[in-house]
């Protein structure tokens, strides 16, 4: 049983998806999804333990030996990302029950769980696979199902947002296929470990250079790196609350992982950052993303859109860490991937609670909400403190390592910019706090209770984790550093 864990990680949600479709009745399909996401969490936890003690796991699909067969390869980096994705899935599914029932037509609930499980399966597959073409197939499974999930939003603008995402996402995926194809033409293999070995022996040819360019641009589209982020704000704003929370916490994170995998494992660090001037390109784009997106977030009347722009800025931090190309910097990128998933996932879930009660996430409707829904608003504020990077929250830990990485690289100005950009986060979080706590509720406001426990508890699990891992950093920093060392080839 234990030797098949790597396959089960993907197979379980893949089987759960059609099951959700077949049972049709909404609570049953919810139970199937709950089973799928929780068993995936257990599996990813076991995998991480195995990798930490026993080293890299290599699973041969159908017993075909790599490089001919498809290999699932788990090392510290993707074991950590698997844990993030499945943990978010396991927290979001219980929350989904009430929220989905309120936001979807009763008859469409099972369709939500079907596409949700497919998306979950795709994201886990992208993370676990050791085969470049397999990665593309899983990427498309997760993308296609996320277009469907976004289009399920009630507002008709959800449809145009999903369409825009479909067009840009397909262009990104096609760029990735072109890149993989060119690598295949050059080396004759698709297995990632094998690709890395064969590329190391070859001098830089125009084919490899073109493959590198296509891959970087394609993956950057998927992870919404400025200026390729245009699909993200609308998609997150008009998607159903559960979907925004799930995608914000997982989809872009998995794309960041893919970027790490290609830059550091398949191409060499020397090629990515030595021959190609990618470090300075990423540095500039990341800094613009941090400032431009944070500045735009300040002026958004819709809180979901505000958080979406803030996501673009936070992705900037992750890419900034990667652009340092040293252990502290890359570790900060990976750490922030985990930490941001907790904070942003929790904050989007809190917005879902507001939407459940007052059917709006506009700042104007939030007056006095801090007293009307105290627990939900408190969760939102604690998450916001994390985004700012206040000590004792996870945001502080990632920024700490980011600054360390910047000094190690000798880019002290980047460290200064990180701190400066945190001030912008203070502004957009404070706007919400001011309206929610200091403004009186309108006279005719109906009496509302706080969100139901089945929604509040998952929200607080994520927010609580964002505090816990801000104080106890053994697991996260340890795993992130080990992962960074593996990627950079120093460990």
């Amino acid at each position, binding site marked *: 049983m234990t030797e098949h864990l790597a396959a089960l990680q993907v197979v379980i949600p893949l089987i759960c998806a059609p099951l959700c479709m077949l049972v049709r009745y909404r609570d049953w399909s919810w139970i199937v999804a709950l089973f799928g996401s929780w068993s995936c969490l257990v599996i990813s936890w076991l995998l991480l333990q195995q990798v930490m003690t026993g080293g890299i796991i290599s699973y041969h699909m159908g017993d075909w030996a790599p490089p001919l067969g498809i290999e699932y390869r788990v090392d510290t980096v993707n074991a950590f990302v698997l844990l993030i994705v499945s943990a978010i899935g396991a927290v979001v599914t219980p929350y989904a029950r009430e929220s989905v029932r309120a936001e979807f037509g009763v008859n469409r609930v099972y369709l939500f769980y079907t596409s949700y499980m497919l998306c979950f399966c795709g994201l886990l597959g992208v993370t676990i696979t050791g085969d470049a*073409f397999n990665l593309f197939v899983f990427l498309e499974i997760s993308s296609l199902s996320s277009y469907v999930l976004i289009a399920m939003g009630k507002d008709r603008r959800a449809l145009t947002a*999903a*369409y825009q995402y479909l067009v840009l996402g397909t262009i990104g995926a096609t760029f990735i296929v*072109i890149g993989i194809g060119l690598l295949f033409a050059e080396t004759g293999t698709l297995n990632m470990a094998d690709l890395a070995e064969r590329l190391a022996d070859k001098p830089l040819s125009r084919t490899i250079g073109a493959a590198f360019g296509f891959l970087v641009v394609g993956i950057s589209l998927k992870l919404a790196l400025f200026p390729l982020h245009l699909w993200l704000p609308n998609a997150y704003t008009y998607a159903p609350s559960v979907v925004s929370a799930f995608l914000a916490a997982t989809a872009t994170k998995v794309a960041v992982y893919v970027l790490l995998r290609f830059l550091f494992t398949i191409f060499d660090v020397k090629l990515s950052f030595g021959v190609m001037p990618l470090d300075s390109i990423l540095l500039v784009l990341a800094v613009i993303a941090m400032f431009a997106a944070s500045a735009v977030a300040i002026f958004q009347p819709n809180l979901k859109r505000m958080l979406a722009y803030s996501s673009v800025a936070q992705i900037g931090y992750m890419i900034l860490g990667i652009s340092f190309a040293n252990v502290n910097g890359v570790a900060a990128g990976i750490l922030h991937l985990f930490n941001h998933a907790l904070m942003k996932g929790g904050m989007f879930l809190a917005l879902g609670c507001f939407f459940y009660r007052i059917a709006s996430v506009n700042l104007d409707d939030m007056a006095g909400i801090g007293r009307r829904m105290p627990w939900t608003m408190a969760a939102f504020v604690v998450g916001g403190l994390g985004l700012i990077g206040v000590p004792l929250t996870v945001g502080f830990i990632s920024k700490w390592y980011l600054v360390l990485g910047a000094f190690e690289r000798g880019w002290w100005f980047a460290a200064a910019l990180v701190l400066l950009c945190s001030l912008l986060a203070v502004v957009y979080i404070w706007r919400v706090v001011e309206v929610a706590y200091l403004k009186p509720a309108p006279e005719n406001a109906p009496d509302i209770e706080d969100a139901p426990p089945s929604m509040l508890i998952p929200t607080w699990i994520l927010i609580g984790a964002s505090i816990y891992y801000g104080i106890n950093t053994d697991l996260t920093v340890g795993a992130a550093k080990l992962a960074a060392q593996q990627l950079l080839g120093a460990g």
Partner: protein
Amino acid sequence: MAAVGLYNYWIVVFLMMAGFYIVIAHDNLVKKIVGLNVFQASVFVMYITFGKIQGGTAPIIAEGITTYSNPLPHVLILTAIVVGVATTALGLALVVRINEAYGTIEEDEIHVQDEES
């Protein structure tokens, strides 16, 4: 005669740019999907082309034959075609829903309606 030998790759580049241009330049949502299809098709042609080995035959073991074409790109492209079909189907389904919701499939008119609401 290198330029002629690379005939297929010229086609690939032309199709890729044409498809990409349609996606960017057209306002009609269905035309955008068609452009996306042309764009994807160019990649299929590229994969098939570099699977061909000069003088190679179909990859079935037979006496007296030593050179075979590589069958792997064909298999990969079968998968990519399936993905492309799924994307097209989903894209067109979205266009149908957009048409129901807005009464138009022209992007500029949709923008105008969104501005008003």
